[in-house]
């Protein structure tokens, strides 16, 4: 018997629980060259802001041990071009579409979300209050419970479909931030964004990124992400989409056990664009071997000491 891979998040059904993460799959066009996007549980777009953004000057990525640093700086086409140029393509894809929203001010988050309210093809939005790479907005909202609740509530008021809030690990208590987001009206969490870090070129004695620091992602951050998923899971009953350093189905199983209902794959796509498909395959085998009927049987089943 084939195990049931369907999961529900805030009333939205996903054919499988493996999505691609924001900033790691563009707006879908490039991955669609490699395989039909219908094989993904869903796709999260690059963060969209009100105006187009160029991002930071290069170099804005650096390879590290088991991962990478990035300080792209929310380079994106802006909401208008997104709706005009990217949505028509996304509308044709047989997968769940989540649009990631970022802003420098609460007004910007609200305005982008308001416009997205009219875009029928998207199933949910993911609020990025956790980007470490911009001077204004981003993590500034995501590290203060008061601002978190305020921005989430403001977006909640203008966007009628489910709202996911993406949390940062660079906070004293991710549980407090999650509670604040829940109070503001969040329907689910994405845990987590990248971890602040930097790297130095010892020959030039300069940072390897023009932004001087960036966000660490990839296998290096998996243990942190697992602990963050667990922390949010113990604090809130809202569904969690786990992300951070997932490369294969074994990593994926760990996230489900710690409390994730679905997953996103980010940096691993760069090395293995087909990673999500392999993970779905591996998860099915694991469920079969363990005589489990549904992927949801795994969620939060960590047997703690």
């Amino acid at each position, binding site marked *: 018997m084939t195990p049931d891979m369907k999961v529900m998040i805030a009333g939205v059904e996903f054919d499988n629980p493996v999505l691609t993460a924001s*900033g*790691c*799959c*563009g707006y879908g066009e*490039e*991955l669609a*060259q*490699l395989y039909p996007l219908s094989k993904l549980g869903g796709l999260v777009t*690059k963060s969209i802001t009100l105006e187009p953004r*160029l*991002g930071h*000057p*290069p*170099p*804005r*990525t*650096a*390879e*590290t*041990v*088991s*991962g*990478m640093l*990035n300080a*792209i700086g929310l*380079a994106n086409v802006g909401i208008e071009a997104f709706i005009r140029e990217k949505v028509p393509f996304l509308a044709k894809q047989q997968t769940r579409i989540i649009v990631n929203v970022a802003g420098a001010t609460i007004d910007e988050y609200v305005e982008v979300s308001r416009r997205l309210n009219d875009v029928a093809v998207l199933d949910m939005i993911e609020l990025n209050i956790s980007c470490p790479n911009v001077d204004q907005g981003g993590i500034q909202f995501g590290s203060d419970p008061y601002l978190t609740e305020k921005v989430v509530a403001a977006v909640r008021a203008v966007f009628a479909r489910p709202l996911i809030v993406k949390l940062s690990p660079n906070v004293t208590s991710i549980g407090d931030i999650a509670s604040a987001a829940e109070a503001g009206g969040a329907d689910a969490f994405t845990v987590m964004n990248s971890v602040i870090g930097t790297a130095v070129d010892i020959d030039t004695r300069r940072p390897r990124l023009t932004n001087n620091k960036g966000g660490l992602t*990839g*296998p290096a951050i998996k243990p942190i992400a697992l602990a963050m998923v667990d922390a949010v899971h113990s604090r809130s009953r809202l569904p969690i989409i786990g992300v951070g350093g997932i490369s294969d189905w074994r990593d994926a199983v760990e996230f489900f056990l710690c409390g994730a209902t679905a997953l996103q794959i980010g*940096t691993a*796509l*760069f*090395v*293995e*664009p*087909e990673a999500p498909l392999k993970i779905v395959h591996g998860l099915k085998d694991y469920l079969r071997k363990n005589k489990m009927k549904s992927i949801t049987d795994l969620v939060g089943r960590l047997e703690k000491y």
Partner: protein
Amino acid sequence: MTRPKCETVRLIKRRDLKNDYFSFTFAPFSAADKCRPGQFVHLKLPAGEVYFRRAFSVASVETSCGDLELIVKVVGRGTRILAALRRGDATNLLGPLGQPFKLPRRRERVVIVAGGVGFPPLLFLAQKLIDRGHDPKHILFFYGGRSRSDIIERSRIKKLGVDLRIATEDGTLGEQGLVTKPVKTFLQKYGDNCRIFACGPEGMLKAVNELGLALHVPGQLSLEAPMPCGIGVCLGCVVPLTAGGHARVCCDGPVFQIGEVAL
């Protein structure tokens, strides 16, 4: 544009060239016949010391058997691991990726400018042009390096019958000085009806770009940039454009028109 393939291939042949250069032939790569000069493959290294794939231009293909040749210079950790591969070892290739060179018309004179490790895609280009009927005598192959040992596969280029002009900075082979010097002299004299195709270190590309603009000779440059993904999704490989904005080297390039990129 053909869709890239992601396939496991084996190293079927390796040749150790001089000065830390290696030629690797991988097979079977089902997209070998789809690879065009200027395109590259993203090669996965055994898990361990390095995380990302590494980009290498296609140097030649043998379409009948799916052979794909890369010519690689060892410069760091990843290329060192690659140099340790032995015949029969498996690796994973993603490609062909990127925009190829736009081929010149048959009557146009081709001015190739290769600097150091920028040589492989231009070898492929010259071969392709000749296969398509371009007169080898109308292909000038300027090839520069620091020293004699940086100039590889000389007999192979000569066999193509192209007009090979070598320059080395220390004068140990060919003309002494930077390769852009003889290129300039040539273009000043015979620049009409020429197309430039260049790949090499940043300084060389910059000089060729300026030459092309100053002498009104059109052409294309193949750029390099560190590439986390190679497929256009991470936005890590961008370069500034003269018209404003950024372009992704991996998928909007690596081949750009002279004058297009703010070098």
